[in-house]
């Protein structure tokens, strides 16, 4: 697999280093000549100076045979254009953009970027997972299918306790895929009875999340 990383800040540097150590074929493009010099001493010839949004730079970096282009500069507008140019001009199948302003994740997705990574949102979701009393946590969005994986902790006063799954009035397009009970993983069937303290891992259509939350935690206070 051939991966081109554009943007040699801290993210780009450590990403390149990690990918090289994992055995991938990697190429790093960075604008600033001083940084390029430093990185060349460390990585050798896989570092190039240039503007990753320019066709000539992408061509020289071998975008024509790249499987993935990852744009991780500090500027969202540059990351967007780098990914779009890679896709439109070089038919790169997979483009990944770092999003500095979390509000841009949705926009980038609409504009055809395959994966967006927002540090702000990553940290936010970590914080949400660390807070124990939060009963309903959105773990990840599966973008293309419009699906989400959520984790729900069943409280003592949840309307669903002591009920078998088949009796729950789960919204359509919602599946309880796994239950964590006293540290043990249970793959549920319709007969499985929900107990207080259960952690449910649920695959759901994104637009069903609110409905599901209400079913599991009761109507909003």
């Amino acid at each position, binding site marked *: 697999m051939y991966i081109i990383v554009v943007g040699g800040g801290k993210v780009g540097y450590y990403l390149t280093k990690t990918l090289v150590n994992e055995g991938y074929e990697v190429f790093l493009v960075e604008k600033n000549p001083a940084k390029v010099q430093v990185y060349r001493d460390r990585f050798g010839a896989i570092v190039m100076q240039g503007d990753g*949004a*320019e*066709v*000539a730079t992408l061509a020289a970096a071998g975008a024509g045979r790249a499987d993935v282009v990852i744009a991780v500069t500090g*500027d*969202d*507008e*540059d990351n*967007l*254009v780098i990914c*779009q*140019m890679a896709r*439109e*001009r070089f038919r790169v199948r997979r483009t990944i953009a770092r999003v500095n*302003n979390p*509000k*841009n994740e949705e*926009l980038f997705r*609409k*504009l055809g970027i395959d994966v967006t990574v927002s540090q702000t949102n990553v940290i936010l979701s970590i914080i949400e997972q660390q807070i124990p009393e939060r009963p309903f946590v959105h773990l990840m969005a599966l973008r293309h299918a419009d699906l989400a994986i959520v984790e729900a902790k069943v409280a003592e006063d949840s309307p669903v306790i002591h009920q078998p799954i088949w009796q729950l009035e789960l919204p359509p397009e919602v599946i309880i895929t796994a239950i964590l009970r006293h540290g043990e993983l249970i793959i549920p069937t319709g007969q499985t009875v929900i107990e207080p303290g259960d952690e449910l891992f649920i695959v759901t259509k994104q637009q069903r999340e609110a409905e599901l939350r209400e079913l599991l935690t009761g109507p909003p206070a």
Partner: protein
Amino acid sequence: MRIVIVGCGRVGSRLATEFAAEGHRVSLVDQRQESFRRLPERFPGQLVLGTGIDEDVLRSAGIESADVFIAVTEDDNTNIMAAQIAQVVYHVPKVILRIYDPERAEVYRRLGLTVICPTRTVADMIEEQVREGHPTRVSD
């Protein structure tokens, strides 16, 4: 018409002045306060300080009801992103942007944006002048 212009450089300020003089409602967005000094003293339009790739900024410039959106900052990628926000998110009927890099201009033209590429235009004009004005010298 309601016209939103991102980038108050020479081109942006000139367009804003002319459209406002014709009676259109003009909003100008620029990151730097001093850019607005290019405008005439009694400029009747709205000035918004901020970046043209931030939806909050664009909304306060009235993008939701804009008939025309023009992105003419000095940075190609900023213009490209701003124009795509106007087109894809706010469905502004007419979106025009400047891209200096001819290769990038070509790609985004194919994606359906109205792209003005001054590099290409000026090069073509000069080329034309050269060909018309100076026929090939025949050695004696």
